[in-house]
């Protein structure tokens, strides 16, 4: 009996030591440097405690994120074991072999993509789009929406002035036309002795800013990337009359209602403009919203959250943000990296992720009856995620993005040419890219 006991103890110790030896990895997770990344560091401590792996994080500011991380992937770098890459990288990640395919892993571990919000699965995980080939687990749901100064909207003197000017009540804008009217009303107005402005919108030139902003508006004006029946046939879709009207609207909004000098604004500049009380309305990704709630200037009920307004025909879409988490194929610690994804996919971890400020994409979290009331922005987030569209996720995404950045900035900010010329030029640029890619 004693010998059996000793043998069992020895076997248990051996197994334990072997298990621990096999697991003791130093994993590096690469992502953008922003508030959710800090929340993930905290969340991951639980994984470290459970698994014995040590987590290291490589966070890069948004303006350099794509540049830095795509170079890392393209060069076959081993820095990142796990990559929370932007949704548009999924095509290149899959086709260039940067990410490992996760289908078998999901099947083996009971992770089902039907458990996640469908838009996030399409946006962050699938390549080719619409096929059950998964290269990432939806990690952070995000979408462009609007915040507004609820406290300003509630002031009787402001309401009266608005009614006098426009003949209608000051309400959160439901259409883009209303949004512009509200922005025009606030532009240059004195509030608490300070001059305030209408709206902060995306105008950044260097990375992806102005494209994200323009697209967020264009979708609801009828813009489509290509002919649904003939992929990559863009003539009449990218430069449709509706799309032209949408681009003209964006320029008009920029000209009439943004703060002085807002010619190169993206997420950070938008946050600053809003928190400092410069603007009444602000376009930004949902990830910024938890930060507003705790801000002494705009938090505590002073901020309202809006789903992207509707276009002239009532169509309503929003630009998808967010990312999926992938295992980098060049990593030598793929097993440990997959362990992290398995841990991260658990409902209780996802619930905790949401409570810490991470926008979970797991349906059991967001469809929980208590979810909508859990945060002031929760319902807006849910409604927004239901109407998302995303930019091209093709392997040539960077070239496609560069072209739109140039065309949109040239027209909207620099005022060169017309909206029609800008979109015609964009069709030409994108056609050239797809020809170079051999897709046309």
């Amino acid at each position, binding site marked *: 009996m004693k010998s059996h006991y000793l043998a069992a103890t020895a076997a248990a110790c051996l197994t334990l030591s072997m298990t621990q030896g096999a697991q003791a990895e130093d994993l590096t997770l690469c992502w953008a440097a922003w508030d959710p990344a800090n929340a993930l560091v905290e969340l991951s401590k639980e994984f470290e405690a459970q698994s014995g792996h040590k987590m290291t994080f490589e966070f890069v500011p948004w303006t350099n994120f794509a540049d830095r991380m795509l*170079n890392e992937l393209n060069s076959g770098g081993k820095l990142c074991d796990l990559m929370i890459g932007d949704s548009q990288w999924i095509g290149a990640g899959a086709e260039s072999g940067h990410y490992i395919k996760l289908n078998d892993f999901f099947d083996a571990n009971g992770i089902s993509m039907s458990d996640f919000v469908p838009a996030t699965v399409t946006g962050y995980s699938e390549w080719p789009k619409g096929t059950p080939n998964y290269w990432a687990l939806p990690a952070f749901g995000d979408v462009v929406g609007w915040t507004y100064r609820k406290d300003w909207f509630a002031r009787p003197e402001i309401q009266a002035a608005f009614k006098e000017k426009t003949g209608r009540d000051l309400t959160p804008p439901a259409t883009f036309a209303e949004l512009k009217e509200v922005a025009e009303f606030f532009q240059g107005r004195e509030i608490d002795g300070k001059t305030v402005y209408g709206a902060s919108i995306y105008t950044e030139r260097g990375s992806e800013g102005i494209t994200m902003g323009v697209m967020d508006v264009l979708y609801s004006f009828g813009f489509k990337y290509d002919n649904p029946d003939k992929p990559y046939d863009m003539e009449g879709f990218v430069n449709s009359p509706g799309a032209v009207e949408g681009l003209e609207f964006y320029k008009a909004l920029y000209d009439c209602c943004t703060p002085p000098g807002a*010619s*190169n604004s993206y997420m950070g500049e938008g946050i600053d403009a809003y928190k400092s009380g*410069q603007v009444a309305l602000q376009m930004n990704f949902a990830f910024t919203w938890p930060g507003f709630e705790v801000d002494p200037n705009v938090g505590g009920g002073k901020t309202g959250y809006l789903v992207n307004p509707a276009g002239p025909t009532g169509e309503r879409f929003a630009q998808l943000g967010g990312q999926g988490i992938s295992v980098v194929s060049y990593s030598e610690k793929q097993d440990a990296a997959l362990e992290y994804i398995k841990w991260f996919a658990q409902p209780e971890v996802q619930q905790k992720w949401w409570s810490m400020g991470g926008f979970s994409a797991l349906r059991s979290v967001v469809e929980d009856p208590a979810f909508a009331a859990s945060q002031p922005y929760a319902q807006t987030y849910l409604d927004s995620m239901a109407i998302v569209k995303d930019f091209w996720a093709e392997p040539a995404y*960077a070239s496609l993005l560069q072209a739109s950045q140039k065309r949109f*900035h040239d027209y909207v900010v*620099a005022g060169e040419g017309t909206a029609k010329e800008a979109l015609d030029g964009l069709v030409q640029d994108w056609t050239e890219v797809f020809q170079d890619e051999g897709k046309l």
Partner: protein
Amino acid sequence: MADTPIDRLARATPSSLARRVRGLSDRAIAWVFVTPTILLLLAINIFPLIWTVRLSFTNFAANKPNAEVKWVGLRNYTRILTDPDIWQTMQATAHFLFWTLLFQVVIGFSLAWLINRKFRGNDLLTTLIVLPMMLSPAVVGNFWTFLYEPQIGLFNYAVEFFTGIPASSFSMLGSVTLAPWSIVIADTWMWTPFVMLICLAGLRSIPDYIYEAAEVDRASKWRQFWTMTVPMVLPFLMLAVLFRGIENFKMFDLVVQLTGGGPGSTTLLTSIELKREAFEKWRTGYSSAYAIILFVTVFGLASIYVKALNKVKER
């Protein structure tokens, strides 16, 4: 006789090696020393240049190492030279180059001329003037971004103070007409001290007795300046222009930080465009052709300029 290190080295050298070295000519020994440097230069300068030329005739994309590389002949070159966007970046670069050089030469030389006098605090003033060029371009870019801020920027307030134009009524970085000047101003602020230092070296190299002789001949200060000071400082000034010209032709960091190439493409300089083509769009073949065109342009202009510089020095 003292035991020198050379004697000790000679004794320590194995006799077989000593015999072999003794058999080498001076020229051969020179080659032995120079060869590693030449090999290094070939490896890190000449080979990449030749490789870039080769790539410029292909459709190679560095992010697709396994894709078939096709020979495209002169297509990359013709696409670049017929692309109006590329010519726009060339124009933006020429504007930046011309005005920064002009301002830096005029202000740099003037500062050097003023500071080349004996007065109290001269050294301290010189140190303060050269401070901007000691800063990182990224820091300077950030710093000027705040200065140009329409609502809180000191630059706009200074303009308002002197001209009465409201500070928040114009945006240096957001206006198509002002943005090209905003990068010229920031670069001039940063690099004028460099031109000043070189001019100062030139001014201080002029012997005092030449001015004393001119005084004896009753030459006016104006005449002394144009017939003695300027010609004798000219080679230094031309050298400063060469250095600044080459540097500004490849200007990247400061402008990216300030405008990111915008608004629109108004301040999109060739180096920014080249970086986007090469490392964002990953059109390696195309960007290689672009780099070769820029290289030939700079090399050609610099060669002509150096010849002119040598002629000035010979006078």
